[in-house]
């Protein structure tokens, strides 16, 4: 029992096996993500009642909060995969880490834009130097730094390890940033904005939020699988299994 899990992981980490595995997984993940997304959006936009304080503007929460969760979740995945890549030099971990970065950056961007669009009618401003907003912005810069460093290297595997190292440094940095901005903000202005208030979210509002969170998670799995597949083809372009794959009919 304890023996076959590492063995299975070891088998899975070989590129051809993972390529086939990801190819089998992503249509399911994407299909389920679309179904959950459709149900969640219907619940979010139609079924959920308007908030008694914020009216219909609060409906932005249904994409803002799942995106914010994903931006942090993906960063954590990236950092763990980077750690594995830097320490054990496993090719698949490098691929997972580096292909997660653009997806995470996309979710971080969505979080910032939707938060901005939510903040304007609610607080009367697009942006405020609140600890959460600033940390999210720093997260976006970290993602961009990781992506930029990865592409600055000629050798892609080396670039992946260097960028992974940066990702690991970044995850130490984020709590410090959050803490320092919190400290700084309390110095400058007395109160910070309270996102969710103390009021409990009604069940009608909660289930679309959870369903959409599930949808974004599934979407990440699907997108990661597809990106990793494309990346593996590029990385392993000289291997026989890729040649068999891209040339299904041998030239006459």
């Amino acid at each position, binding site marked *: 029992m304890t023996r076959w899990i590492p063995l299975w992981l070891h088998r899975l980490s070989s590129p051809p096996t993972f390529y086939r595995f990801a190819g089998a997984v992503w249509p399911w993940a994407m299909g389920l993500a679309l179904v959950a997304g459709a149900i969640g959006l219907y619940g979010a*936009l139609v079924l959920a009642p308007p908030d008694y304080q914020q009216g*219909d*503007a609060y*409906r932005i929460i249904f*994409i803002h909060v799942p995106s914010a969760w994903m931006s942090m979740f993906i960063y954590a995945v990236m950092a763990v995969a980077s750690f594995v890549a830097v320490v054990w030099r496993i090719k698949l971990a490098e691929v997972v880490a580096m292909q997660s970065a653009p997806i995470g950056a*996309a979710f971080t961007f*969505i979080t910032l834009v939707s938060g901005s669009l939510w903040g304007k*009618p609610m607080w009367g401003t697009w942006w405020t130097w609140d600890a959460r907003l600033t940390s999210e912005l720093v997260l976006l810069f970290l993602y961009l730094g990781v992506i930029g460093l990865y592409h600055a290297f000629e050798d892609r595997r080396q670039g992946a390890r260097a960028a992974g190292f940066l990702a690991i440094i970044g995850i130490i940095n984020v709590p410090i940033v959050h803490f320092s901005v919190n400290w700084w903000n309390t110095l400058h202005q007395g109160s910070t904005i309270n996102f969710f208030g103390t009021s409990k979210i009604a069940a009608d509002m909660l289930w679309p939020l959870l369903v959409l969170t599930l949808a974004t998670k599934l*979407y990440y799995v699907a997108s990661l699988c*597809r990106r990793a597949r494309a990346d593996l083809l590029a990385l392993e372009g000289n291997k026989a299994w890729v040649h068999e794959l891209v040339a299904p009919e041998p030239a006459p």
Partner: protein
Amino acid sequence: MSGSWQAFLDMGGYAAYVWPAYAVFLAVLLGDSLVPTLRRHRIVQELRARLVRQAVRQDAAHAATGNESGATAAPSRST
């Protein structure tokens, strides 16, 4: 019916904020899901072209060695 549809689009007066947020969400994720498709297509094209080139080169080399054995065939190739 049209009234409720209007009310839905209006979003209680917050249409200018709610709909762009959802549009950005969907547009960014759609863009994100197009990237691997395009990249995969490009990589496969490149690899195929490389394989074809390799095959041609191998054929040429094969033909050259095959022709060298017959001394008379070699000049006819050069013309």
